[in-house]
């Protein structure tokens, strides 16, 4: 019996003393940080309401609400092998929710891209399906196709013609044209994002994603808040402009 126990112990020791190759397959802690900026200036909750930012159109903007959904978040290696990071995240800058996200995954060392969708693709934009987003009151009316907001960005602006602070609601959703309610037209305006060249080596991984809020107002469409400020959800063309501008909002911080 004692001989058997000795053999078993030896076997366990041999198995646990793995080679270097196995070390690479160890679980790594992946941390994704979302760092919000206006151009190069970091924006935090403390800047809400009071701090003024200038858009490409020279509108002065203050922020009161900034929250958005990223979905289908994956790390993809050079051979297009996907590692799921999260189905979706509701990131709320003012409430400081999900500004940093951690997960343990087994990853082989190599070069990866971080892929995600800003908002939900039509396939995932299921009306009333996500209890946490319902609870956060993030829904879109069924008359506009239902599902969820991609982003709620509220604040106030001034410029040479609007001298008193005036509200804006830069709310991104799936574009919907309901001028003829019997024949609504919908277009998926979620934004696929791929942040490339993330080197995964031994040890834990920290990925810093820069979210440049100013880009919503400038690239490629210079945004004029005098004409596009509120009631943008049912504005099909405005949603398409938002979608185009959103493509340059997310980038990889060089320090990642």
């Amino acid at each position, binding site marked *: 019996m004692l001989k058997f126990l000795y053999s078993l112990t030896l076997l366990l020791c041999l198995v646990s003393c793995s080679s270097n190759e196995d070390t690479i397959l160890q679980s790594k802690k992946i941390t994704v940080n979302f760092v919000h900026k206006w151009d190069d200036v970091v924006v935090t909750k403390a800047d809400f309401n009071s701090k003024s930012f200038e858009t490409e159109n020279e509108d002065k903007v203050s922020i009161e609400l900034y929250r958005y959904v990223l979905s289908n978040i994956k790390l993809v290696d050079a051979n297009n092998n996907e590692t799921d990071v999260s189905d979706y995240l509701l990131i709320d800058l003012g409430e400081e929710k999900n500004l940093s996200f951690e997960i343990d995954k087994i990853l082989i060392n190599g070069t990866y891209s971080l892929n995600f969708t800003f908002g939900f693709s039509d396939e995932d934009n299921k009306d009333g399906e996500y209890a946490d987003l319902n*609870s956060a*009151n993030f*829904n879109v009316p*069924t008359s506009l196709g239902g599902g969820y907001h991609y982003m709620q960005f*509220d604040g106030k602006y001034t410029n040479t013609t609007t001298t008193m602070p005036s*509200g804006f609601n830069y*709310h991104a959703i799936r574009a919907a044209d309901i001028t003829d309610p019997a024949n609504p037209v919908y277009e998926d305006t979620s934004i696929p994002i791929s942040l490339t060249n993330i080197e995964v080596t031994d040890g834990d991984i920290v990925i810093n994603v820069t979210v440049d809020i100013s880009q919503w107002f400038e690239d490629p469409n210079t945004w004029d808040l005098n004409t596009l400020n509120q009631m943008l*959800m049912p504005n099909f063309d405005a949603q398409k402009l938002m979608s185009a501008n959103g493509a340059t909002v997310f980038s990889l911080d060089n320090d990642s």
Partner: protein
Amino acid sequence: MIRNCTFSFFICVFLSCSSDNSNDQETYTPIEISLEVPKLFEDKLIAPVIPVNNRLTVEGVALGRKLFFDPILSGDNSVSCATCHDPKKAFTDNLQFSEGINGRIGTRNSMPLFNLAWNFDERFAWDGKEFSLEKQAFEPVTNSKEMNNDWKTVATRLINHSEYPELFKQAFGNIPVDSNLVVKAIAQFERTLISGNAKFDKFLRGETTLTTQEQNGLDVFMQETKGDCFHCHGNPNNPLWTDNQFHNNGLDETFSDLGLGAVTGDPNDNGKFRSPSLRNLAFTSPYMHDGRFTTLDEVIDHYSEGLKNSTTIDPLMKKIDQGGVNLTTQDKADLKVFLLTLSDSDFLNNPNFQKP
């Protein structure tokens, strides 16, 4: 060696499976219960907030209910929680400002009480000053305009009462009766106050239909270019009918009551108050934190053409220079009819919520 291990193992098992000693047998174990969550809430919302240190029990809820309706908490035994939170009025009163001890008048309209376990941020009262239901229940007892009592007196009265000592023992064991246990019991009862059986709930469950006018009213509610109520007050997928967040909804140009601003000390929060649920509006007039509007028509008129600008007005308030979105008379009427489909008379008459 192995024989020794086996022996030790049996000793351990024997010790861990020992019978209760005589003291344990005398301790009453309260019966834990779960909230009766409406199916719609279960399907659409995340789980209600139940603190781990104050699980619901049959005995705790019953004790909380008795305390809620008992004026023993007030300085002169004249005022109970139910004085300002009447179950027949969806747990508010119909006064602009509630009347406390010795006829003293407060400065805020009493909030109705229901679906409190789904206030996920747990910021209670109009200004969010109370973090958790338990802490909220502390305040009225010592507030000079409400119950004007002190907790030491309350504890003494309860300890010397003919029934309460045994009820506390059943609910919480042999812990001395104090303010912590009182607010825990009241909070347990308050969490059971669930309203989820209005006409609109039945419509969502496929049990009834909406009239054309009610359906039009829902459309006004949900259209960003019309009422745009849904951004703060929920939607068919958020059956709370509130976001429980703080907004300045354009009531005043200057503020005599700072609301959230007085709590946070941040001038950017001045004039912000928590969005109330739109459930049970048929029973909860007058409206707003200061009860300034007697009727729903006045409320709708305010949002339609009565908005007043200020530095902290919520960006969701639209066309402020025109006073609001200027709904048509028909849209206003339809919106009102829809809002009334959110009232739940079953909630008022639930026997579990009445004075025991």
